[in-house]
C-alpha cells in the first residue's frame, strides 16, 4: 500500500486519490451430504487483498479501478491502467478531509484469530455437533458451512485521511434439506448450544415438514413469515428502494422529492435505523469503504421517508449529507422500539389457522419498484388450532406497501436478529 501511495503522490497528473484496501485471511470447512471436509467443502484457507482506487486527474476526469495485491506490487502499471479508463464524472470528486472519528468500537476477537490460524478442530467439532443435532431431527443429508475470517481495512486519501480497522467474523450457514435454513454470525467464536431453544423449534418444524397435507382453501389464511423471510421481503422492497444510486437516477420507487416531503410510505410502526458502529456486531464497521464515519442513521421514521442511503457520490448528486450504509440485519432495525413482539413459538401455538413460511423461492425475480409480489414457498407449514399439521406449497401474492399497512404482528427467535412478521396477503395453495 505504501508503494502505491508514494507513487500516487509523486504522479503529477494525479490531483486527488482515495485508496481503500481490504486484507482478508479466512478458513472455511463444511459438510456436504454426509462428509465433513469432503470434495465440495474441504478445509480451505484463503488470503486475499481487495479494494478500490479512485483518482481525480488534473484534467478533471475520474478513474475507478479495483485493487488486488498485484496492483500494490506494481504501482506504475496500476496508475497507468487507471489513466486509460478515466471518464468525466462530476459527482465522484469526493475526497474527505482528514477527521478524528467521534467513536471507535471494537470489531475484532483475538480468540477468533487463533481459530482462523491454528484451531481447525474447533470448527470441525462444531460441524459434528450440528450434524448430530440435525440428524436427531431426521435430517438425512447435510449442508453446513463455517467460515472464520480475519480482516483489516484501510482507507487513505490525498487529503491526509488515514483510517484503519480490524475485524473478525464467524459465520455458520446450514440448510436442512433445502426446507429450512439458518445463518448465525458473530464477531467472536459462537457456540451452537447458546441457540438450543430456537434450534429445537426448527427441529419441530422440520419434523412437521415430513408430512404433506392437503388443505382446501375456504377462508383467508394468515401468513407467519420467519424472521429471515420477513427480512428478505423488506430488504428487497424497502431497503433496495432507498439506495441513493437509484433515487438519484429515478430508478427507485421513491424520488428525491418524496424524501424532501417526508412522504408516508408505510405504517407508523415502521422505523428503519442503522447502527453500523455497534460493538462486536456482524456488518458493523467504524467507517465505510469511502472513509465516511458510520454514525447512527434513521432512513424511515414512523413510516415516513427521511433520507436515502447515500454514499459520497450520490450524496453530492442529491445535495444531501452522506449516511452510514445499511450493512445487514445485525446493524439494522425496522420496527419501533416499543412495538410488541411475541416469541415465534407462542405465535405458532396460538394460531387458529395459518401458514408458516420459512423462505421464498425467487425473491430476486420480483419487481422492486411496484412492490407487487408473487412468491412461492414450497415448504410452508400449515398450522391448525396451534398444531403444526404438515407441509403445503403456497404462493403468496399482493403488494408489500399495501399489505404491511393492515394488521401486522411481530415474532422473534434468536436464530435471526430481526423480527418475523404475521400478515394477511393472498394465499394460493398449490397442487
Amino acid at each position, binding site marked *: 500500500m505504501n508503494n502505491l501511495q508514494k507513487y500516487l503522490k509523486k504522479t503529477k497528473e494525479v490531483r486527488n486519490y482515495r485508496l481503500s484496501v481490504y486484507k482478508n485471511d479466512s478458513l472455511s470447512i463444511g459438510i456436504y451430504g454426509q462428509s465433513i471436509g469432503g470434495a465440495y467443502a474441504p478445509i480451505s484457507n484463503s488470503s*486475499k487483498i481487495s479494494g478500490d482506487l479512485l483518482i481525480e486527474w488534473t484534467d478533471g476526469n475520474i478513474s475507478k479501478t479495483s485493487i*488486488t495485491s498485484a496492483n500494490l506490487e506494481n504501482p506504475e502499471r496500476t496508475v497507468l491502467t487507471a489513466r486509460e479508463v478515466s471518464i468525466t464524472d462530476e459527482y465522484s470528486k469526493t475526497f474527505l478531509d482528514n477527521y478524528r472519528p467521534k467513536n471507535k468500537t471494537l470489531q475484532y476477537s483475538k480468540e477468533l484469530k487463533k481459530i482462523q490460524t491454528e484451531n481447525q478442530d474447533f470448527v470441525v467439532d462444531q460441524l459434528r455437533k450440528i450434524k448430530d443435532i440435525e440428524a436427531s431431527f431426521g435430517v438425512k443429508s447435510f449442508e453446513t458451512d463455517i467460515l472464520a475470517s480475519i480482516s483489516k481495512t484501510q482507507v487513505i486519501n490525498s487529503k491526509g485521511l488515514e483510517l484503519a480497522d480490524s475485524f473478525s467474523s464467524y459465520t455458520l450457514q446450514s440448510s436442512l434439506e433445502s426446507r429450512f435454513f439458518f445463518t448465525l454470525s458473530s464477531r467472536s467464536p459462537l457456540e451452537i448450544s447458546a441457540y438450543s431453544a430456537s434450534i429445537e423449534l426448527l427441529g419441530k418444524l422440520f419434523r412437521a415438514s415430513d408430512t404433506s397435507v392437503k388443505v382446501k382453501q375456504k377462508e383467508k389464511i394468515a401468513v407467519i413469515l420467519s424472521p429471515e423471510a420477513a427480512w428478505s421481503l423488506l430488504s428487497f422492497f424497502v431497503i433496495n428502494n432507498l439506495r441513493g444510486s437509484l433515487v438519484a437516477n429515478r430508478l427507485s420507487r421513491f424520488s428525491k422529492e418524496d424524501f424532501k416531503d417526508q412522504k408516508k410510505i408505510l405504517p407508523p410502526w415502521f422505523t428503519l435505523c442503522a447502527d453500523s458502529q455497534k460493538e462486536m456486531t456482524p456488518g458493523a464497521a467504524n467507517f465505510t469503504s469511502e472513509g465516511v464515519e458510520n454514525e447512527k442513521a434513521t432512513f424511515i421514521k414512523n413510516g415516513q421517508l427521511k433520507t436515502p442511503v447515500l454514499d459520497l457520490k450520490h450524496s453530492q448528486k442529491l445535495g444531501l449529507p452522506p449516511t452510514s450504509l445499511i450493512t445487514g440485519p445485525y446493524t439494522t432495525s425496522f420496527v419501533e422500539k416499543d412495538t410488541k413482539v411475541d416469541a415465534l413459538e407462542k405465535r405458532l401455538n396460538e394460531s387458529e389457522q395459518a401458514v408458516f413460511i420459512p423462505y421464498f*423461492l425467487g425473491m430476486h425475480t420480483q419487481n422492486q419498484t411496484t412492490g407487487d409480489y408473487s412468491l412461492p414457498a414450497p415448504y410452508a407449514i400449515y398450522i391448525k388450532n396451534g398444531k403444526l399439521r404438515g407441509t403445503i406449497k403456497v404462493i403468496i401474492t399482493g403488494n408489500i406497501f399495501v399489505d404491511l399497512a393492515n394488521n401486522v404482528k411481530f415474532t422473534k427467535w434468536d436464530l435471526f436478529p430481526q423480527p418475523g412478521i404475521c400478515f394477511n396477503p393472498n394465499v394460493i395453495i398449490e397442487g
Partner: protein
Amino acid sequence: MKNVKKIAQMLISEAQKENIYTIIRLQDYKSRSINAKNGKIDNANLTESTGIGIQAYTQNGHTGFASVDTILDEKRLLACLHSAINSAKTSKQSNFEKIKEIFEIEPTKAEVFQKPEIDPFTITNKEMEKDLLKFHSNIQRKYPQYALSNTASFSTNDWRIFRSDGTDVHFSTSAAILVSTVNTSGKEAGNEFYESSYGKGYELVYDSEEKSAHIKRLANKLQYSDKLEAANHVSGSNRAILLDSSMAGVFVHEAFGHTAESDNIYQDSPLLLNKKLDKGKVVAKPFIHILDYADKNDRGFNPYSSYGIKRNKITIVKKGKLNSLISDIVTAKRAGCQLEGGAVCETYEDIPVPRMSCTQIILDKNKTIPLSFDHREANTKEIQKVLREAGVFDSFSEIIYLLGSSGGNVDSQKGNFQFAATLAFKMTKSIVELIKPVSFSGVTLEALHSVEMAFGDPIGIPGLCGKFGQYIPESTKAPMILLSPNKYVTIG
C-alpha cells in the same frame, strides 16, 4: 501469465517431496464496464484479478485447499501450498472423505481460446463513452419520460490448470453484454423493464443489427407499461402456458439443468435412483431432447473443466429419456454416469462444482411450428394468430402467454422451481388480454412432462448462474414452448 509454468512446476515438485498430489489453478481475470444513466456517463470500472488455487491430495485421496491472490510472490505461494498440504493431512487424520477418482484421470495438454473479434481492452474510454451514449440516446429519444440505464460489460478469463500427472491445460473465455434497464417511474409505482444482448467482445457494440433488435424487443415490452396498473391478476394451476424463449430457457436451466448436476448425489434429485443416475427414466415426451453444450460463440463456453478435463457435449435427455448428468470427476463414477468434464469454479478461490454451460431444449421438427419472425419482437396478436393456425385453441380454450424472464430459482433436491415473467397475457381464440406479471412455479418433472410443442428456432439468452455462492456466465437456447395444463404447475 508469464512464467506460470515454472511457478506451477516449482509448487508441484515442492508438494511431491511430501508425497502430495496437487492441482494448481491459475486465473487471470479482467473486466471492464461502462454505464450511462439518463443521458450521461455515470460510471466506469476496471477490475483485474490474478491468483492461484491449490488443491492438495494425500496418497489416500484426502484433500485440502488454499488460495492466494498472487502468482509472483514466491513466499506467499509456498505458504499457500503448505496450507493446502496441511489441510489435506488434517483431513486424513480426521478421516474425512477420500477423493481417489482424481488419480484415475489421464494427463492432458491443451490450449483453447475463445477470442473476441475486437478486444475491448484495446478501446479507449473516450470511444467507449461515445459508442455507449449513441446507443443510449437512441433509446432515450424514444422514451424521454422514463429513467434509462445502459451498461456495457466485457471480461476475459484466462485459466491455466496444472496437475501432478503432467497435465497443462490453458484456456480463456471472453464475454460481452449490453444491458438496458428502463424504469417507468414518474408515476407512483414505475415498472422495471430489462433487455440484454450478448457476445464475446467489443464487436457487440458495433453490431447495428443486434442493437436495433435489442431496441425492438425492449419497445415490445414497454408498450404495455402504462396498462399494467389496470391489468387483472390471474392465478391458479391447470392452465395451458406458452413460455417465450427466455422463460423456456430459464425453465430448462433452473428447473431441469440444476437437478441434472451430478453433485446432487450428496443430497437428492428427482433424476437419481438410490443416488445414481436413473438412466432411461422417462422424464418427458419422446420428442424432447435436452443438451448442455456451449460452442466457441456461446456464452458459458468452458472447453475444459477446472480439473483440466475436456468438457463433453452432454445429452442429458434423449428422446424424452434421461441419458446423462452434468458430471465432474468427483461424482461421475459414484453417480453411475459418464465423466463429462462439467466442473467449473468462478475464481481461483473457489472449489469447482458441476455447472451448466449453454443448456438447450430441442423438440423434434414434427412438434415444432416454424416462425417467420422473432417472437420477442412480435405483437401478441401475431402470436395468437400462430397459435390459432396451429390449432392450439382447439385443444386449450385459454392460454397464458409469459413474455420476458426476470430470473428464477430452484430447489434442486425436490425439483421445486419458480420463475417470474416480465409480462403475461391471457389469450383465447379471439381475445388477447394483458394481465399482471405472474410467477410460474411447480415441480420440474411434472412441468417437463407437460411440454407439448414448440414454436420457432431456439434462441440464445444470456444469463448469470449462482451456485454455492459462485456466479458464472451461462446461456440457454430454447424456442417458445407450450405446456398443457398440469395441477402441479401454477401461475400466480
